[in-house]
C-alpha cells in the first residue's frame, strides 16, 4: 500500500487549480455594481417568496388556530399535523382526486392544444383571427370561466342540456354525479387552458425550418409521417415544458371547483388545495392547513425537478 503524503496532495491540487490572477479594476467595479444592483431585487424576492414559505413551514409545526393565539408558538408536537395527515382519510382521498384531475387535464390540454395548433399552423388572415378567438378563454378571469361553466352544467338553465335533450340525447347533471363531476371540471379546465399549450406549440411549429419539411415531402412522406418524424421531434421539448406548466397549474385548480362543485358530490372533487382551504378558512385550523400546503409545495418542487430532468434527457437523446 502506498503512503500518500499530504504535501503531495496539496501540490497536486495547486497544479490543477488555474493560476489566480488579479482581476482588473474595471472587472471588480463591474462585479460590485452587479452585486449592489441585484441586491435590492434579491431582498424583495426573499421577502415576498422565501419569507412566507418559511413562515408556512414554521406554522405547519404548530396547531395554530386563531381562536387560541398562543398556539402560534406551541411547538410541543412539531410533527403532529403531519402524523395526523397520514391518517386523514379526506387528505389521502384529496391526493387521489388531485392525481386524477391533473392527469386528465394535462393529457386533454396537450392533446387539444397540439391538435388545434396543427390546424392553425398556416399563414392566413382568417386563421390569425381564429387564433385570437381561441385565446379568449385563457384571458378571462377564472371566476368568470367558472360561472360560464356553472350555467352550462346546470340542467335547469343550460343550453347544452337543452340542446342534447332536443336531439334526443338527454344527459343528467354532470356536476352532481360522482362519476362525471371530476371529468366535467377537467373539461372546463381544458377549455380555459388549452390555448396556453396551443400558443406554445404554434410558436414552436413556426420556428421549424422549411428545408426538412420540404425534403420529407419530396421523399414522399405523408401527413402522419411528416408529423411523426419531422414535426414531433422539433416540438417535443416544447410539449414537455407546456406539460410541466400545466401540471403545476393543475395543482392550483380552485375557482372551478369552488363554484361548480364545492368539492362534492361528497368529496368526489375535493382536491388537495381545496381541502387545505376548507381546513384553514372554514375551520380555522391554520397549522393543519399549513402542513397540507407545505406537502403540496414539496410535491410541486419534486415534480418540477423530475420533469425538468426528463426534459433535459429528452433533449440529450435528440
Amino acid at each position, binding site marked *: 500500500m502506498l503512503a500518500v503524503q499530504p504535501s503531495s496532495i496539496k501540490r497536486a491540487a495547486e497544479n490543477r487549480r488555474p493560476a489566480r490572477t488579479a482581476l482588473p479594476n474595471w472587472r471588480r467595479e463591474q462585479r460590485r455594481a452587479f452585486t449592489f444592483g441585484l441586491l435590492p431585487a434579491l431582498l424583495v424576492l426573499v421577502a415576498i417568496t422565501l419569507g412566507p414559505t418559511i413562515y408556512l413551514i414554521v406554522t405547519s409545526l404548530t*396547531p395554530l*388556530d*386563531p*381562536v*387560541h393565539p398562543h398556539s402560534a408558538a406551541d411547538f410541543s408536537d412539531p410533527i403532529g399535523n403531519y402524523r*395526523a395527515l397520514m391518517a*386523514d*382519510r*379526506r387528505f389521502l382521498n384529496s391526493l387521489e382526486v388531485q392525481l386524477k384531475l391533473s392527469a386528465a387535464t394535462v393529457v386533454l390540454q396537450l392533446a387539444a392544444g397540439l391538435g388545434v395548433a396543427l390546424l392553425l399552423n398556416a399563414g392566413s388572415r382568417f386563421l390569425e383571427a381564429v387564433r385570437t378567438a381561441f385565446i379568449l378563454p385563457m384571458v378571462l378571469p377564472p371566476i368568470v370561466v367558472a360561472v360560464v361553466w356553472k350555467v352550462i*352544467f*346546470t*340542467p*335547469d338553465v343550460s343550453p347544452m*342540456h337543452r340542446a342534447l335533450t332536443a336531439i334526443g340525447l338527454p344527459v*343528467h*347533471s354532470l*356536476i*352532481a*354525479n*360522482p362519476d362525471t363531476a371530476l371529468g366535467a371540471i377537467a373539461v372546463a379546465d381544458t377549455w380555459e387552458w388549452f390555448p396556453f399549450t396551443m400558443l406554445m406549440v404554434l410558436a414552436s411549429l413556426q420556428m421549424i425550418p422549411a428545408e426538412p419539411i420540404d425534403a420529407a415531402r419530396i421523399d414522399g412522406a405523408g401527413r402522419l409521417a411528416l408529423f411523426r418524424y419531422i414535426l414531433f421531434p422539433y416540438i417535443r421539448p416544447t410539449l414537455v415544458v407546456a406539460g410541466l406548466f400545466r401540471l403545476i397549474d393543475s395543482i392550483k385548480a380552485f375557482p372551478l371547483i369552488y363554484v*361548480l*362543485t364545492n368539492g*362534492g*358530490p*361528497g*368529496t*368526489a372533487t375535493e382536491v388537495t388545495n381545496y381541502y387545505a382551504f*376548507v381546513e384553514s*378558512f*372554514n*375551520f*380555522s*385550523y391554520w397549522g*393543519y392547513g399549513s402542513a397540507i400546503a407545505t406537502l403540496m409545495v414539496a410535491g410541486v418542487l419534486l415534480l418540477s425537478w423530475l420533469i425538468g430532468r426528463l426534459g433535459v434527457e429528452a433533449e440529450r437523446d435528440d
Partner: protein
Amino acid sequence: MTLLERRLRRRQLLRAGAAAAGALLLPGRAPAQGGAKPLSGTTLNIACWSSPYAKLLTDYVPQFEEATGAKVNYETPSFPIYNQRIDVELSTGGSSYDVLNVTFIYIGRWIGAGWFVPLDPYLKDPQKTPADWEPGDFLPGATAAFKDPSGRLYAIPWTADIYMAGAARYDLFEKSGKTMPDTFDGVADAMKAVHMKDGIPAFLPENHYGWSFIPWLQGFGGNVFRDPPEDLTPVLDTPEAIAAADFFAKLLRDYGPDGVISYTYDQVVATLKAGRANYSPNGQIFLVQMGAKDSKVAGTCNFSMCPAGPKGRFPGVATHGWGIPAGSKNKDAAWQFITWAMSKPIIRQMVVERGYSSITRRSLIDSPEFKGKLTINGHDIVKIYLDTIALGAQGYMKYRTIYVYPQVDKQIDIAIQNIASGQLSATAAMTQAQQDSLAELKRAGIKL
C-alpha cells in the same frame, strides 16, 4: 393659542356635539341639526352576507349618509364567502370593518373569542341610545343568542328567520288531491303525487344540509351533539340519524330536480320563483319571495309550518345581528349606524315599501302593516312565523351556536351528498360523518 382661536374651537366643538346629539336622538330620521353633519369625514366599512334584508338595506344606506354625512362602504358577498373572509379578518385582529353581521353559526366562535365588543355600554348610555329606541322591543329569543354567559349583548338581531315550507305550484297539489303536508310521511306522499306534474320536479331544499336537514334529523329523534353545550360528542351515527338521512336523501334523489345537490340558496329561490320546482322546506326569508312582483308563482304559492317527524316538529330558527368588531376604529359611529338601521322608522319603511318579512321588533310584528305584507296569496305567514319562534324557544337549536358547529356542519353536507348521489349508503355516510366530526373536534382541542 389666541382667545379668538380658543373661542372658535369651543364653538366648533359645541356645534359638533349638538349635531351628534341630534343624530343620536333621532335614529331613523334625519339626524343633522343646523346644517352640520355629525359624521362628516367619517368612513364606515360595513358588511353582511347577501341575505334579502342585506340587499334591501343597500337602497336605504344613502339615507344614513345623507343624514349624518358619513361615507358608507357597504358590501354583501355570498354567505360562505362572507363567513370565510370575516373569520380571517376577525381572527387576525383586523380593523377593516366597523359594523359586521354576526353570523348565527359563528356566534360561539366570534363572540367567545372576544372579537366583538359588548353593546351594553352603548345601550345604557342615554346619550348614545335614546329611550324611544326601545332595546326591549327586540324578540327575546333572538337577542338571547347574542349574549355571553354573563349576559352581555354583542349584536342587535336584524332577522329571526324560521324554517318552514312553501309550495310554488300549490295548484298541482290540489289537482292531485293533496294539501300542504304536515308530517314527514305526508311530504313523501305529496311529493310522489306531484312530482313532474307539468314537468316540474317536486322537492328542492338548499344544498346547505347543515341547515336544511337538521329539522328532519331532530324530527326522527336524532341530534347533532349528544347534549349541547355540555356534551359535544357528535351523534350522527345513531339509528335515528341514519333513518333521517336515508329518508331525506331519498326525497332528494326521487323528487329533486336534476342536479338537486348542487342548488345553493339563491338558485333555489330563483328556481321556485320561476316555477321550475314545487315544494321547498326552507328559510322564510327565501320562501316569501315567491310572492314578489317578479315571481311567476305569486298566484299559486302556499305555505305551511315545517312538517313534523315521528318525534315531533323542530323547525330551525336562525338569527343574525349587527355587531361592532373589536378592531373597529369608529365604534361610536358604528353604533350610530346600528341604531339607525335597527330603528323602528327604518324597519317599518322596509316592511311597508319593500315587504321585508323577517323582522325582530315585536311592536312591528304586531303591526297591521306587517300582517298585511305577510299575507301572501291569501296565506297568513305571521301565524307560522310566531308559532315557529315559540317552538324555537324550547332550546333544540342549542347545537347551532356551538363554536365548533361549522366543522360538523360540513360533515353533514358531505354525508347527505354522498347518500343522495348514491356513493354511500345512509349507514356508511353517517358513520363516516361521525368519524370525521370526531377527528375535527379533536383537532379543535375538544376532549370527548
